[in-house]
Every structure is written in structure tokens, then in C-alpha cells.
């Protein structure tokens, strides 16, 4: 473990200035991922810039245009239990509460959730090669133990998955990410925030090194009538998803007016296929139609020795979750995901 300096930022401008002066510094908010990575010697910042003095970024507020602004420094627990989120964006509460543990959710922040690292075992094991950690060194996961790994959008360089639950709901809700730098504010569509590994698996997202996430913007529509989040994993709580599905559904005259489906645990980013979603518009919300979209979503899937099962698992999870979205009572607090 290396040593590091520590500064507490007094303002956003101050934060960016410290970062500009020291390129090897890191922002720290909740620290639940960064300190873990630091203990594994995977991240070695020369200086930590503590963001927790930036009180404005801890708020959750409804904007005049009806959108919701989730401060980047609001904790996961505060967000999940916030009345605006519980009432109008219940899929987000549900997804957040299915992730991590109560203790971690009390510290971890919304901005940090977007930036968390993969839990690929080879990435964490300093003795193994890893293209994400050490570009060009190879990917042992492709021929190795790959139960937790990607089946969609992977590359010859990397088959790691992005582990967030919260971000799967944000993808289905079509949130936006607000980032700030010395050149001003930039708004990033959620779909463009995380990236596929391609030839540069060391890059998880499109955030630039001089940018700070300041907020997540939720659109006016929260799909609070027909929604569902389903997470399948090796134990019932406190484990990362093998497959997770977020479904946001809007019905009109008993037909599908809009359907957004995001998959977690299967790719380097929250997985959406808007073309497949469009094919269901105007159709009836039946099991057969959901099976159709499940096949479309997994059409390009390619599994590896230990994770092939995830292709069929994902298809069934999509169908089950879309049917659950028709019955909001399946999402009441504490309800077991079942049909």
C-alpha cells in the first residue's frame, strides 16, 4: 500500500484546480470502492481530494421542468429512500436496494456508483495479466474462470462486466449524467456514459480526467405504474448479479406504448437494444411477445465455458421481469421476486 496526501475541497472550482495541479490525484466521495482498490494496490493516488465539503452535490431536488436532480454526492441509501424516488422512480429504489449491503449504501454515493470498477477476479489479482489493469498483458478470463463474465458486447481484449445495479435502472429510465470541468457543464446521455471494452478495455467510461460528475438527471417520466427490477445471483443478498433486468413499461389501451429494457451482469455497460424495444411498440404485453424481445436482445450473445448458461438465464429473466412489470404488487417492499 502506498501513502497519499489529503485535501478537502471547498468548492467545485477548488476541486478542479487541485486536480489540475496534481494529475495523479483522485477524487474521493464515499470511498467504498476506491479504498478497497487501494488496499489491493490497484489504485495508487498520490493525493485524495475529499469532495464531502461540497454540500450542494448532496441534494436531491425536483427541477422546475419536472426532472429530478440527484446530487452526485447523495448516498445510495439517501437516494433509495428519498420520497421523490420511492414514489415516482420506484425502479431506481428497488435496484439500489438490491446492491451492496446496508452499510455500504450508507457511504457509497451516486457519482461513485457510476464509476465503480468491475469485480472480474483477474482484474483484482495483481499476479494475473489483465488488459484492463495492464493494457496489452492479456485476458486470462477468456480461457479461465468466467462465470461472472460478459456474454454481450465483449471483445478479444476483455470480457469483464460492469457490476452496478443502480446504473441498470438509470439506463432503463434514460437518465443523463451532468459533468463539470473548467470548460463548463456537459450533459451525457446515460447510454453514452459507459463504454464497451473494444481495443481499450482500460477505459470504463467516457468521463475525462479533468471532469467531475455533479449530478444524475432523471427525466420527468418515472414509469412508476409498470416497472420491475429482477436480480439473479449466487446468493439471495449481498452478491453481484449474474443477470439483472430493469423493465420500464408504459401501456396505452392495453398495448405497449413504450418499453425500455436494460440488462446488467452481462456486459461492460448497461445493455440496451432500442431496435428490439421498438419492435414491441403497439403489441400486446403477452408472454409470447416478451419471449420474442428476449430472443432479439440475446441474439448476438456469445458465452464462454463457464457462463454460457447466462444466455438462457437472461432470456427467461427478461420474460419473467416484463411479466412482473405488469403487476406492480410484485415490487412491494420486501416482496420476493416471484410469479
Amino acid at each position, binding site marked *: 500500500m502506498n*501513502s497519499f*496526501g489529503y485535501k478537502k475541497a471547498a468548492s467545485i472550482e477548488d476541486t478542479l484546480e487541485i486536480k489540475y495541479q496534481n494529475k495523479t490525484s483522485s477524487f474521493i466521495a464515499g470511498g467504498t470502492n476506491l*479504498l478497497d482498490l487501494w488496499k489491493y494496490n490497484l489504485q495508487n493516488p498520490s493525493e485524495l481530494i*475529499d469532495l464531502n465539503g461540497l454540500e450542494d452535490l448532496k441534494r436531491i431536488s425536483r427541477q422546475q421542468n419536472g426532472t429530478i436532480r440527484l446530487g452526485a454526492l447523495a448516498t445510495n441509501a439517501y437516494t433509495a429512500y428519498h420520497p421523490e424516488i420511492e414514489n415516482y422512480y420506484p425502479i431506481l429504489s428497488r435496484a439500489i436496494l438490491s446492491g451492496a449491503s*446496508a452499510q*455500504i449504501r450508507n457511504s457509497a454515493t451516486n457519482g461513485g456508483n457510476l464509476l465503480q470498477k468491475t469485480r472480474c477476479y483477474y482484474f483484482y489479482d495483481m499476479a494475473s495479466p489483465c488488459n484492463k489493469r495492464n493494457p496489452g498483458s492479456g485476458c486470462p478470463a477468456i480461457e479461465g474462470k468466467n462465470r461472472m463474465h460478459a456474454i454481450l458486447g465483449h471483445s478479444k481484449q476483455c470480457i469483464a462486466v460492469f457490476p452496478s445495479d443502480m446504473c441498470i435502472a438509470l439506463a432503463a429510465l434514460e437518465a443523463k449524467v451532468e459533468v463539470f470541468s473548467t470548460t463548463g457543464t456537459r450533459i451525457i446521455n446515460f447510454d453514452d456514459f459507459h463504454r464497451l471494452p473494444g481495443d481499450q478495455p482500460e477505459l470504463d467510461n467516457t468521463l475525462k480526467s479533468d471532469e467531475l460528475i455533479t449530478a444524475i438527471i432523471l427525466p420527468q417520466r418515472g414509469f412508476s405504474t409498470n416497472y420491475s427490477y429482477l436480480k439473479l445471483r449466487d446468493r439471495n443478498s449481498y452478491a453481484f448479479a449474474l443477470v439483472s433486468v430493469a423493465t420500464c413499461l408504459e401501456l396505452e389501451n392495453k398495448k405497449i406504448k413504450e418499453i425500455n429494457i436494460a440488462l446488467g451482469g452481462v456486459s461492460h455497460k448497461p445493455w440496451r437494444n432500442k431496435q428490439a424495444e421498438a419492435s414491441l411498440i403497439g403489441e400486446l404485453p403477452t408472454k409470447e411477445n416478451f419471449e420474442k424481445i428476449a430472443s432479439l436482445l440475446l441474439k448476438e450473445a456469445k458465452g464462454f465455458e463457464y457462463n454460457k448458461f447466462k444466455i438462457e438465464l437472461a432470456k427467461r429473466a427478461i420474460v419473467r421481469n416484463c411479466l412482473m412489470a405488469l403487476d406492480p404488487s410484485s415490487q412491494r417492499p420486501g416482496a420476493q421476486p416471484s410469479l
Partner: protein
Amino acid sequence: MNHKSKITLNINQKKYILELLPWVTLLDTLRDHLDLTGTKKGCDHGQCGACTVLCDGKRILSCLTLSVMKDNSMITTIEGVAQGEKLHPLQKEFIEMDAFQCGYCTPGQICSALGMIDENRAYTLEEVKESMSGNLCRCGANSNIIDAIMNYKNQDHE
């Protein structure tokens, strides 16, 4: 750079003024600097919950928390749960229900349960199990731990 910061922590109703290097976790501060060894180091990576303490009333993992980031915070550890020699009713329930074997996870379990009760979000057995899933017990006393917590909740201390 890398110099000590002067911070104030209120731990179990007692004020401590400390000079700490930035990378000292709250867990190491408690155990190595203040001899408050009730809080346990299990995995040191946020996976087991043995290091759970209450910070400003909320349960957090002291192993993934830097003390310099908690300047002026109010910390409660297992040493602050009893009143002198008088055990907290939840501690009594743990004894009554045989809710431990080796006892290593117990301080974290009790702090976590007190944090959970204060959150007032878990009511049924299923919800309590889910809410306590960040605290592992390798002896297999889990079911007794949950029973002890449910007994305490049902006594209407909330």
C-alpha cells in the same frame, strides 16, 4: 504532503483529538490508536461487516472509511452500546438466544442491527434478513442472530 491531520472524533460520548496520517482507516484508528478493540477486523475489504460502527447514527464499514474524512463525527462502537455494566437489551438477547459461537462478528452484528432499527425500514423476518446481509457469521449462528434481533424488535424498544 503526507503530513498528519488534526481531527476531532466523538467516540462513545468521549471527545478525542487525534493527529493522523491520511491513510489511517477508522477501523485502525479505533483498534491501534485508541485501544478500542471491540470493533473487529475481518476481511478489511468491506465484505464481512465485522468492522461495522455507527457514524452520526448510521451504520458504516470502518475498514472502508478514512478517519480524516470523519472529522467532527459522532462514532458509536460496541464499547458504547452498554451503559456501564448494564448490558443493552439487544446484547442480552444475543446471550439469551445463543447468537454467537466464536463471537468475532458479534460487535459488528450488534452495531449493524442497532443501525437497522434506527433506519426503521425492516419489519418482517425476511426484511431483517435482507437488511442484515452485510454481516457474515462463519460459525453458522445466523439464524440465532436474526432471532435475537427479532426478539428485541418485538419487545417494542424502538
